[in-house]
C-alpha cells in the first residue's frame, strides 16, 4: 500500500480534518490552499466564539492546523487546481500557483473541501449594505468581536442593535431558496457576545423562524433570553434608511400583529448573511467536472447514504461544498471523506447509487 496519494483541495475545517486523518492512516496527502494560511473561512474572517459551546474558534482549529503542519503534508499555498486528467486508476492534477507556474501531481483520489462563501449583502440593494454606515454582516461582526473592537462609526459601543436574519437565504428574489442553517445560531451567539460587552445595550433579533436546532435550543435561544434579555421580533425588515447621527432606521412589520408597521432607529444593524458555494468552489467543481444540484452546491452521489462521495469516481466531498454546514459537521465530514478515500485508494471500494435515476411511485387515490 505504499505510494498512495490523495489530493485535498481546501484547508478549512473539513480539509484539515481529512488531511489529518489520512496522514494518520499512512496515506500521502497533497494539500492545495488558495490563501497563504491554513484554516479556511473561519481564519480568513477571524471568527470569534463558536456556537453552541461558546469557545474561541482558535481552540477548535489550531490543533487541527498544528496537526497538519507537523505531519509532513506536501502543501501548495496560494495555489488553485487548474485542471484534472482522469487516468483510469488515478488523476494527474495541474496545480497553478500565484505566479502562474503549473506543477503536475499524480494522485489516486481527490477530496474536494473548498467550502462556501458568505452571501454578499450588496446584492440585496434595498438593505443599503456598503452605502449606509453602521450596517454590517455577521461575517464583519465576527472580526470586530474577536478583535474586541465592537464600535459604531462614531467610535463608541452600540447601545441599540438590530440583527436581521435570512439575508440571502430563504429568498427567491436573489435565487437562494434554501436555509443557510447556521445564521440563527451565529446571530444568537453574537447577540449574547454583544450583551456581554455592552450589558445595557438593547439587542433585537428580527426573525421569521428561529432555527437553533437540536441541542442549541436551550444553549442559545433560551439562554439568550434568560440570561441576556435579547429581544425577538417576528418579521423581516424590508428596507433600511440612514437616520440622523449615523443611526440606521429600519422599516419592517411586526407580524405577530396585523398591519403593524415598525419604523425604529438603531445604532448598529447586523445582516445575518447566508452561505453560497462561492466562486472558489465553483472553479473547483468546474476543474474536477463535478455536477451541481439545484441550489448551486455540489451534488453528492446519494445525499442520504453516500453524502461524501461525488458523482465522479475517485472524487470525494467534504464540508460546506455540498450545502450549508456547521464547523463540527464539516470536521465530521472530513473524517468520513478521509475514510472513504482510504478505502478507495487501498481496496478500490466505490459504492454506487441509482438515487438520481429513481422516481418514487405513489398511489393516487
Amino acid at each position, binding site marked *: 500500500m505504499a505510494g498512495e496519494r490523495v489530493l485535498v483541495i481546501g484547508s478549512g475545517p473539513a480539509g484539515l480534518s481529512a488531511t489529518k486523518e489520512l496522514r494518520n492512516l499512512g496515506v500521502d496527502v497533497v494539500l492545495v490552499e488558495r490563501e497563504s494560511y491554513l484554516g479556511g473561512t473561519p481564519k480568513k474572517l477571524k471568527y470569534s466564539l463558536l456556537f453552541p459551546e461558546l469557545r474561541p474558534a482558535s481552540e477548535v482549529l489550531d490543533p487541527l492546523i498544528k496537526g497538519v503542519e507537523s505531519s509532513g503534508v506536501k502543501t501548495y499555498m496560494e495555489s488553485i487546481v487548474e485542471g484534472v486528467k482522469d487516468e483510469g486508476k488515478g488523476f494527474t492534477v495541474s496545480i497553478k500557483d500565484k505566479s502562474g507556474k503549473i506543477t503536475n501531481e499524480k494522485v489516486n483520489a481527490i477530496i474536494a473541501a473548498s467550502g462556501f462563501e458568505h452571501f454578499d449583502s450588496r446584492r440585496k440593494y*434595498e438593505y443599503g449594505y456598503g452605502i449606509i454606515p453602521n450596517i454590517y454582516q455577521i461575517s464583519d461582526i465576527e472580526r470586530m468581536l474577536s478583535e474586541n473592537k465592537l464600535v459604531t462609526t462614531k467610535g463608541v459601543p452600540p447601545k441599540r442593535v438590530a440583527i436581521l436574519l*435570512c439575508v440571502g437565504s*430563504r*429568498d*427567491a*428574489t436573489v435565487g437562494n431558496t434554501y436555509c443557510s442553517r447556521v445564521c440563527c445560531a451565529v446571530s444568537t451567539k453574537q447577540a449574547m457576545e454583544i450583551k456581554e460587552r455592552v450589558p445595557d445595550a438593547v439587542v433585537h433579533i428580527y426573525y*421569521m423562524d428561529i432555527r437553533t436546532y437540536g441541542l442549541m435550543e436551550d444553549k442559545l435561544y433560551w439562554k439568550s433570553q434568560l440570561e441576556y434579555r435579547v429581544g425577538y421580533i*417576528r*418579521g*423581516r*425588515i*424590508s*428596507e433600511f434608511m440612514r437616520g440622523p447621527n449615523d443611526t440606521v432606521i429600519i*422599516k*419592517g*412589520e*411586526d*407580524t405577530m400583529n*396585523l*398591519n403593524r*408597521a*415598525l419604523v425604529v432607529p438603531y445604532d448598529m444593524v447586523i445582516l445575518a448573511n447566508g452561505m453560497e458555494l462561492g466562486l472558489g468552489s465553483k472553479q473547483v467543481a468546474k476543474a474536477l467536472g463535478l455536477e451541481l444540484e439545484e441550489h448551486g452546491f455540489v451534488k453528492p452521489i446519494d445525499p442520504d447514504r453516500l453524502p461524501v462521495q461525488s458523482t465522479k469516481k475517485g472524487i470525494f466531498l467534504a464540508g460546506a461544498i455540498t450545502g450549508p454546514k456547521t464547523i463540527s459537521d464539516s470536521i465530521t465530514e472530513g473524517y468520513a471523506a478521509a475514510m472513504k478515500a482510504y478505502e478507495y485508494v487501498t481496496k478500490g471500494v466505490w459504492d454506487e447509487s441509482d438515487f438520481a435515476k429513481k422516481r418514487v411511485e405513489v398511489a393516487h387515490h
Partner: protein
Amino acid sequence: MAQAKSILQLPDDPRFLDMAYDVQGAVPEEERNLLSNLSPQDRETAIKFWQAVKSDFRYNEYLRGCLNCGVCTSGCPAAKFYDFGPREMIQYMMRDEVDKIWEFTNKKVWACVQCYTCSMRCPFNNEIAGLIMLLREYSVQFALPSAKEILAPYRRVLYTVLTMGNQVTPDMIQPDSFPDWGPQAVEESKNMDVYRKAIPVDLMQRTDIGWHPSLQTAVEMMTIMIESGVMDSLRGVDKDLYDMIMDIYEDRKSQLEEIKEKWQKGELDENELPDSWLDL
C-alpha cells in the same frame, strides 16, 4: 314553539366545534366561518365571488406561498396611511377565509396604489399586486357596492376612454382641481380653446378631446370594448354610463355605415363633410 335543543349542544366556540363534528351536528371547518357576521345573501355572494377569483387562471400562478415575513406590508406605501396590508390578504387567501376576503375586498383593496414593491421584494415570489388586481377585476364584474363607489368619480375618464380612447381631455384640466397651480398656468387655462386652435395639427385642435381618432378607429375601439367584455363589466357598475355609451356606439356605427354606403355608390361629397366627424 321553539325547537328543543340537543343536550349535546356546545357553545359556538371553535375549540368545542373542532372536537367532534358528527356528535354536534356541526359542519366541517371549511364550510363554516365562525366569525361570520354576514347576512345569508351576502355570504352567498361572497362565496361565489371567492370561487370566481380562485378559478381564475392567474390565481395559482400569482399565489405561491407565504413565510409571514411582512416584507410586503413594511414596504407598502398604502400600508403607511391605511389599515391595509398585502400580507393580510395573502393569509386570508391561503386559508380560504371567505368572510375576511369579502371584507377586505369591500373596504381595503382599493387602498393599493399598484406600485408592485410587494411583488418585487416578496421572498416567495408571490405576485401580490397582481392578486389585488384580480380582486379588483372581479369586484367590478360582480358590481360590488365598493366598486361602484370607487369608480363614480372616474365616470368622465371612463367615458372618454371608452368612446375616444383618450384618458384625459384638456378641458378636464381646470384650476379648481389643481390648487397648486401658479398664476401663469391659471391664466393659460382660461383661453385653452384659442391656444389649441393655434396648434398646426388637426388631431389636437379641440379641447374636448386629447387626440382625434377617426370615425372608423372610434367604432373599432368600441367594438373591441364590447366584444372583450369591458362593457359587460361596466353595465353592472354604472348602468347609466353603459346606456349612454351604447347609444353613442349605435349612432356612430350607423353614421359610419352610411358614409361607407355613399362612398361605394360614389355619392359622397367630401366638401359637405364637417372638419371633425364629432360634429356630424
